[in-house]
């Protein structure tokens, strides 16, 4: 499912709204989630899951081409943990 398919499904669910409203809603939700996560704040969606940042400490890596050692700086990476309802539904469907 892509973003535009999601927008269409939501527009069908809300016949009283115009498609543009569904489109703006999807955009507003994703923008808010991006803004929050990128400033290090958590997102908790009951029944769906939570998003947070994981810290990766600095490490000594290697340039795979030359084999020379390079310092890889510390970084934060987005992490998603599925909530119970999502976990159960995805697993029981198999």
């Amino acid at each position, binding site marked *: 499912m892509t973003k535009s398919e999601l927008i269409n499904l939501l527009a069908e669910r809300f016949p009283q709204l115009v498609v543009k409203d569904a489109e703006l809603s*999807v955009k507003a939700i*994703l923008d808010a*989630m*991006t803004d929050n996560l*990128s400033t290090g704040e958590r997102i908790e969606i*009951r029944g769906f899951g939570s998003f947070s*940042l994981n810290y990766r400490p600095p490490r000594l890596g290697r340039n795979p081409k030359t084999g020379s050692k390079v310092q890889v700086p510390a970084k934060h990476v987005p992490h998603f943990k599925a909530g119970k309802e*999502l976990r159960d*539904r995805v697993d029981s469907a198999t």
Partner: protein
Amino acid sequence: MTLTKADLADLLFEQVGLNKREAKDMVEAFFEEVRTALETGDSVKLSGFGNFELRKKSERPGRNPKTGEEIPITARRVVTFHASQKLKSRVEEHYASTV
């Protein structure tokens, strides 16, 4: 502050102009459509944000951490999330500016 469904509903009320009822229902429907797609085995690709994918895990040995007793972890299907390049660089930018 942690972002919740109530916060997202407030945003739809303020930014999109949905009424309070619609805003709450829209947030619920957004996550329900993603859950339904994943439940039916479809991956979800939200460009600019990230992709939700499904992975099949086969059975593997596990342990009860309390008792040390060995119990198999059954085969299962799980959801994984891969942040988009855009989301990853937004995170990087923020921390680069604070360090």
